[in-house]
């Protein structure tokens, strides 16, 4: 009953070239499909079109329509059939076109994808990846800029990761596909076109680890996905004013890498978390709560949250007012009693 893997020789490392995050994800899918024929890809428009963000560009031509194909337009159907495929031993990688269009699949995600291993005492595992282009800042019209991460991250049984750069995008997607646990793989849309020089295949830190992407001594800024760049910009600007900011890229939202984050916070004694989603009940609440629980007596100030307002995501012309910026981050840090 279980599908068996064919393996092809490991891809040779290529010379570094400039690659976008979309390109890195495309390469990761291609390499994963070449390495293991249990890896199959489907969703809306992933075939001839190559996905609305071109992440699956060229893959159907290369692997054929029994490895990657367009499904009917129904997200619960996509996730529900992927559960069955994974039960058989395939490794489906399915795409939800935008965060908000994953909501029809919510029941399959929460009641089955998240719970299958548990309810069957580990007898049935679901090696599947749900790719979700996420968040805003691309001028998307209504329903195209949601940040759904806290829905998934707060659901026990799901693993939720979000890369912030092309190298992680490649490495983490390969790792997610190889994982025996289902992974919600969130891709920040506004970073799809960000570039980095890459020699593939690249292996970065394990996907359940946070990474210190800039060292500093005064403040720890915690970001993920699109807000890592915001944090780095804030750190640059602050440096000019003599404030040394350490930036942590969470990479994994569930599990949370307490060790890395707490080590940083204990060093700086001040922390803030940045995300696009509304502040109330957003992922930053968990970050602030657990960082405080674990490091209270090391903290000189409350953990701040710089996040979207508690409103539905705005229309394109108003999103700039909603999204956290480096300026807003720096202004927030100013609210701390720095002499306390």
């Amino acid at each position, binding site marked *: 009953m279980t599908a068996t893997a064919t393996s092809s020789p490991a891809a040779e490392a290529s010379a570094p070239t400039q690659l976008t995050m979309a390109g890195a994800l495309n390469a990761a899918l291609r390499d994963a499909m070449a390495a293991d024929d249990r890896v199959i890809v489907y969703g809306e*428009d992933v075939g001839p079109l190559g996905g*609305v963000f071109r992440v699956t560009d060229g893959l159907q031509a290369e692997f054929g329509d029994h490895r990657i194909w367009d499904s*009917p337009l129904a997200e619960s159907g996509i996730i529900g059939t992927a559960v069955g495929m994974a039960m058989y031993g395939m490794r489906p990688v399915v795409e939800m076109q935008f965060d908000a269009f994953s909501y029809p699949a919510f029941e399959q995600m929460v009641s089955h994808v998240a719970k299958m291993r548990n309810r069957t005492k580990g007898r049935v595992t679901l090696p599947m990846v749900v790719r979700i282009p996420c968040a805003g800042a691309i001028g998307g*019209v*209504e329903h195209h800029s949601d940040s759904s991460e806290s829905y998934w991250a707060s659901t026990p049984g799901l693993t939720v990761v979000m890369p912030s750069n092309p190298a992680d995008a490649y490495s983490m997607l390969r790792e997610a596909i190889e994982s025996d646990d289902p992974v919600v793989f969130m891709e920040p849309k506004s970073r799809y076109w960000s570039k980095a020089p890459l020699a593939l295949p690249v292996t970065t830190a394990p996907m359940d680890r946070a990474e210190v992407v800039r060292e500093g001594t005064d403040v720890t800024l915690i970001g993920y996905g699109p807000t890592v760049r915001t944090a780095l910009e804030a750190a640059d600007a602050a440096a000019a004013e003599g404030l040394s900011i350490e930036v942590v890229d969470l990479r994994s939202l569930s599990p949370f890498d307490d060790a890395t984050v707490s080590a940083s916070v204990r060093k700086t004694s001040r922390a803030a978390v940045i995300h696009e989603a509304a502040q109330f009940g957003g992922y930053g609440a968990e970050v602030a709560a657990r960082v405080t629980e674990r490091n209270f007596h090391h903290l000189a100030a409350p953990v701040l949250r710089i996040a979207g307002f*508690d409103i539905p995501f705005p229309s394109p*012309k108003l999103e700039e*007012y909603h999204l956290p910026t480096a300026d807003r981050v720096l202004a927030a840090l100013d609210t701390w009693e720095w002499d306390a």
Partner: protein
Amino acid sequence: MSLNVEHASVRTLPSEKPLRLLDNAGHAVTGAATGGFGLPNTETLLELYRKMVVARRFDVQVTALTKQGRLATYPSAYGQEACEIGATAALTAQDWLFPTYRDSIALLTRGIEPADILQSFRGDWHNGYDQNAHRTAAQATPLATQALHAVGLSHAARLRHDSIVALTFLGDGATSEGDAHEAFNFAAVWQTPTVFVVQNNQFAISVPLERQTRAATLADKAVGYGMPGYHVDGNDIAAMYAVTSAAVERARSGGGPTLIEGVTYRIEAHTNSDDPTRYRAARDVEHWKRRDPIERLEKFLVSEGALTEAMRTEITDAAEALAARTRDVMTTEAELDPLELFDHVYGRERAALVEQRAALEAEIAAGAFASHEGAAR
């Protein structure tokens, strides 16, 4: 009124060949192919013709403005005028329309101003017209979700003995969503005055119909809900109008819902950000261009001697005037107030939002946003 339903359920398969009243050459069809529907009168057809011409001009204008970067996105209905307008024109002003992003020209037909229709596509606000005044819901993006709203609203009206009807548009792709099924089923079980118009334009973005369904026609789905289904030539506005009008009348008189499939074609890309060369051949588009719904009706009206040159000129002028008005509003920037972001989330004031609003106001006053230098109110 009791909600108890009688047991009769409709169990007739729609005709496999689409119903048609005018053929592609603009000749009136007779016999079985009409499904017993009669041609609307000339006055009505002239009015439908005018609406299509104006809508086409509007659609072309908006597509052009979108290419110039004046709109964030625009899903064109070029080629679908007969479906959009034939169905919409079958409603009275008291009835409700539940449209999708695709159906801007149906909104135009409802008398909504271009500036108000396009607010959302320009990116000013999610929806820009008065839903209640026009009895037209906000254009829905999450597919098939609005069909349930149509069922609910029309059922509420029925409970109130208010004899209005709700009509909703769905795409071929949207019929695959669970919500389409639930809407069909609730409507049929409750016998609500709802008309479902599936615009089968052959594609869901890039995905062709045969990857969406194996049914012989999308109208066949009606059988599974015990409601009448009609498979209609969606480029024949006479047929679309006649079949929808009958469905609206049946609904209004307590006869329950109807599913109508209009077979048509999306001539333009899905939206401006789409690249249809990746998934369909130019010659398929050409084939469908030769089945243009406006030309078809025009041929008929001309052959009947109903459409005079003077009328044509008058209609073209009206269309051009609308296009000009559309250009004008789209080239003037709207005054947007970012603080309004906080005003319509809840009816009841929330302390947290008051705080956040004040914070944004202070940022704007401090000049944080280039576009708002000193413009804070």
